[in-house]
């Protein structure tokens, strides 16, 4: 543990939204670290708070309704939540950049595609307009789009190609940290694989660290080094990819794996997790997952459960792990 080269350290990050008098607790005391050159996966259902975490890091949350009442985001020695806006603007797009979920709406519809890439280059690399155009064309080539298409508009591209433009834009200034918010969710399955490969490729070439937000465990398996399972704005389980995939402990995590259809077995029905995700304006007491947990008891409803280290950095937020393990052993 001592030789870690930590690039990003998030501590107790909390994000709230105020809407029509209600307070929505989107992110609740989330903490994690990311080493240089590694990829962490933030896994969870839609609405679990994953996007809010990424946007909080980059400080692009919509500031009325959203609020960051406490937390620390230490990046290369600075707490991003406390630096001035002008300094944050120097970091955005250059040191940390983001790939968004919906490529159809992520680009300015009345601005040429190449110009949108050149814009970020010219801003951060302090080069001439001509140079930024050249570099932008090179970025387009790198993501597999002919350079001449610099002058075209977003509506002239398909969804997959638009996403590639977004990736080109995000990687144009060789960022140290890449935040990828479900970059392939809105794409066809065949295109998904292409785009994922491209992200991986570029990531390795430029040695970029990455936070990959997804609800797709397949993507986690391909791309991530560590995984944090997020539910109701909290990290419920955290560990390396191997730990989570081979030895999932938190009932929700187990449920996620269980709900995946298995090609090898003959099953008539899918086995989803019972129930619905909680209302973030009105979270359950105690463990946020207890209403849906097949192993829940009264103990789970009493107090908020803390993360426990269950060995070699594998963290889990369940208070009944040993009882559950014993129960399972009996069932076998």
């Amino acid at each position, binding site marked *: 543990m001592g030789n870690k080269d930590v690039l990003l350290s998030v501590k107790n990050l909390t994000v709230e939204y105020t809407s029509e008098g209600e307070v929505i607790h989107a992110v609740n005391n989330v903490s994690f670290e990311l080493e240089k050159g590694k990829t962490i996966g933030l896994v969870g259902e839609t609405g679990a708070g994953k996007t809010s975490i990424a946007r909080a890091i980059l400080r692009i949350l919509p500031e009325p309704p959203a609020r960051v009442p406490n937390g620390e985001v230490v990046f290369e020695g600075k707490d991003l939540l406390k630096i001035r806006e002008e300094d944050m603007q120097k970091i955005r797009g250059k040191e940390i950049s983001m790939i968004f979920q919906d490529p159809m709406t992520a680009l300015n519809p009345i601005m040429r595609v190449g110009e949108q890439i050149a814009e970020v280059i010219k801003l951060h690399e302090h080069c001439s307009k001509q140079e930024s155009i050249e570099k932008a064309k090179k970025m387009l080539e790198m993501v597999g789009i002919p350079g001449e298409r610099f002058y075209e508009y977003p509506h002239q591209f398909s969804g997959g190609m638009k996403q590639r433009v977004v990736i080109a834009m995000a990687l144009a200034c060789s960022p140290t940290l890449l935040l990828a918010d479900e970059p392939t969710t809105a794409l066809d399955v065949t295109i998904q694989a292409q785009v994922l490969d491209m992200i991986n490729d570029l990531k390795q070439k430029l040695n970029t660290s990455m936070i990959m937000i997804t609800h797709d465990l397949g993507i986690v398996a391909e791309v991530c080094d560590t995984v944090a399972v997020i539910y109701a704005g909290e990290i419920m389980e955290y560990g390396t990819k191997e730990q989570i995939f081979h030895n999932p402990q938190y009932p929700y995590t187990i449920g996620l794996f269980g709900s995946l259809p298995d090609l090898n077995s003959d099953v008539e029905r899918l086995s989803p997790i019972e129930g*619905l995700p909680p209302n973030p304006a*009105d979270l359950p007491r105690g463990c946020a997952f207890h209403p*849906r947990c097949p192993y829940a008891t009264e103990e789970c409803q009493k107090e908020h459960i803390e993360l426990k280290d269950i060995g070699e950095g594998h963290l889990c937020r369940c208070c009944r792990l040993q009882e559950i393990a014993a129960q399972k052993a009996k069932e076998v």
Partner: protein
Amino acid sequence: MSTAVNDTHVGVRTRRQGQLGQVMHRLRKNKVAMLGLVIMLLLIAMALLSPWIAPYNYAKTSKADRYASPSWQHLFGCDAMGRDILSRIMYGARASLWLGLMSTLVATVIGVLLGSLVGYYGGRVDNIVMRILDIIQAIPGMLLSIAISAALGSGIGNTILALSIGGVPMTVRLLRGSILTVRKQEYIEAAEKINCSKWRVITAHILPNSIAPVIVSVTMGIGNTILQAASLSYIGLGVQPPTPEWGAMLSEGKSMITKYPHLCIFPGLAIMLVVLCLNMLGDGLRDAMDPKLKN
């Protein structure tokens, strides 16, 4: 089981009922809209009760009181023929509100029917009707009303007709747009359904989808129509004396404005108050029905 219910998981029908409640709740919280609604209701009450609560008979002339300035006996003063302006304004509210309401209603009914027909049948009917509407919209609303009103002559009935024709194209487009959107979605299901239920599906789903913009458009429309009606009366069309329509009152008082400004100030304020309240209410309705616009 989770006690909290997540919006996106609830079925369509329950969501719609909840939506109406949500809309009313949001509207009630909007103070400006509520103020507009309250004042509007008071004005309507005043208009309806005017024969009983007006201080004087609106047609009663009095040589002695000609051009009388505002006083305790005549709060808004008297006009060129000694008639009490406050009473005339109260009675005139009937003409203005009736004109505004009926014209907008007629335009909306015609528009909804026409829009439904056009949306349902589509094709050639759609093309022809839309081209005709394009031509009607090619003439600015005020000018069209002037032309029709000049042709038909003054009077309440004729003015209602003149004012309503200009409002039809917009309502038709609203309806037609909603129908086209819904049709695109329903076709997926329509493939599995029998043809006759397609119509029922459309009518069952169009109403909640298109009723919101129609309501907003009607509320704002009444305000605009009242302005247009007053303008028509002002230039000698529309409704003329002895009916105490506010625009006509302004026209009467215009020549003596330098000496007796009160002849013009009060009728104009009345018009402005009514239209303002309607617009406040219309804005509130629009915001309540589309929360996206609020924050």
